[in-house]
């Protein structure tokens, strides 16, 4: 399992792996917002938590179709399916690698991008915590979507349509934590809900992903 994780991260950071693509996309979204809504820092500060969460979610979406599509194209997925690794472990490792290559950089960069949207100082920690807790769910749900659409020509668009509705609960509670934090309110309840969604997804979805992957490989 560790070998697969190391390989996937190595592939992500080498040329053409798409590492940094999500980050650059996130930056562009955040930079574009003030052009769209105007430079009023009061307004920006108010919408910053939502924009940052939406930006992180869309950047995460950008790299989802690579999770299985590349391994499918070059035949590695068939070979991995015949390897001693259980399919559930395979999809879990794939989700973890996606999170490490996409989610973690987004979380770490978010304070910097929050600065661009003049997020109030007390909002930084809740934003960071909510993204750190919410992005694993984005990767795990996204892996399920990628497993569903593997082998389809131009499955990326279908993948977005399938996955975005599933992202709604994470977005609602994640953005709520960040918003309440920025306004100096209590964040315990939405944080607990967000944690529940994330851990529920991590516990259940690998089995679903493995099942659909088995069907898709036939």
């Amino acid at each position: 399992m560790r070998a697969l994780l190391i390989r996937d991260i190595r592939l992500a950071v080498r040329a053409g792996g798409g590492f940094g693509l999500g980050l650059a996309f996130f930056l562009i979204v955040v930079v574009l917002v003030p052009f769209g809504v105007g430079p009023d820092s009061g307004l920006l500060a108010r919408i910053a938590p939502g924009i940052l969460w939406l930006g992180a979610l869309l950047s995460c979406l950008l790299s989802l179709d690579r999770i299985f599509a590349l391994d499918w194209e070059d035949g590695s997925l068939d070979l991995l399916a015949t390897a001693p690794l259980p399919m559930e472990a395979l999809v879990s490792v794939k989700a973890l690698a996606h999170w490490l290559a996409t989610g973690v950089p987004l979380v770490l960069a978010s304070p910097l991008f929050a600065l661009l949207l003049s997020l109030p100082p007390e909002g930084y920690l809740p934003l960071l915590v909510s993204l750190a807790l919410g992005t694993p769910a984005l990767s795990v749900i996204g892996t399920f979507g990628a497993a569903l659409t593997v082998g389809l020509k131009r499955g990326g668009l279908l993948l977005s349509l399938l996955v975005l509705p599933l992202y709604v609960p994470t977005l609602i509670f994640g953005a709520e934590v960040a918003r309440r934090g920025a306004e100096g309110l209590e964040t315990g309840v939405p944080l607990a809900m967000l944690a529940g969604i994330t851990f529920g997804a991590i516990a259940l979805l690998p089995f679903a992903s493995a099942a659909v992957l088995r069907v898709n490989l036939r």
Partner: protein
Amino acid sequence: MELNVTGLSVARGGIPVLEGLDFTLRAGEALILRGPNGVGKTTILRTIAGLQPPLAGQVGLEREAMAYAGHADGIKSTLTVRENLTFWADIFGTSGVADALEAFDLVALADRVAGALSAGQKRRLGLARMVVTGRPVWVLDEPTVSLDASAVGLFAQAVRNHLAGGGMALMATHIDLGLEEARVLDVAPYRAKAPAHDDFDGSFL
């Protein structure tokens, strides 16, 4: 150890292609499947490798005994030859890729990025993976595509070494490998005659 295939029927895209296939492969034996294009050789090999369930019949060995090599080599072009092989060795829990590199004459290319290899060299790398899996049954689908005569010789030698170590090899190929000991099974007579199986659910999968 033997591979006992009994009454195997396989389907591709919900349509049965071959039925009632029986054969036995003992340790140290090789079997070559022959048949016209589209007869279902790949489907049989994928079924035996455990990538798809059989329509009927049994494959007498666990999928854990099989090492499969399909049309695609599963090579990552941004990794070096050695990294590619080491990855598979780690996945299959074996150690050392030196023998595999040696067997397919890849030692000089070991540190080259796999994307820079020629088609034949990539194929050799794909076949070298079979050596590092350490599994007893090799299931090979058209292993010699894009190999030149000397590389085919290397491959035949690797298969022979594998058989000598008590392994088995099952392959679909059209060219003569020079493996005199290998049996040949023509699968064309097993072509499915039954009407299309009513797999209503399957058409949605």
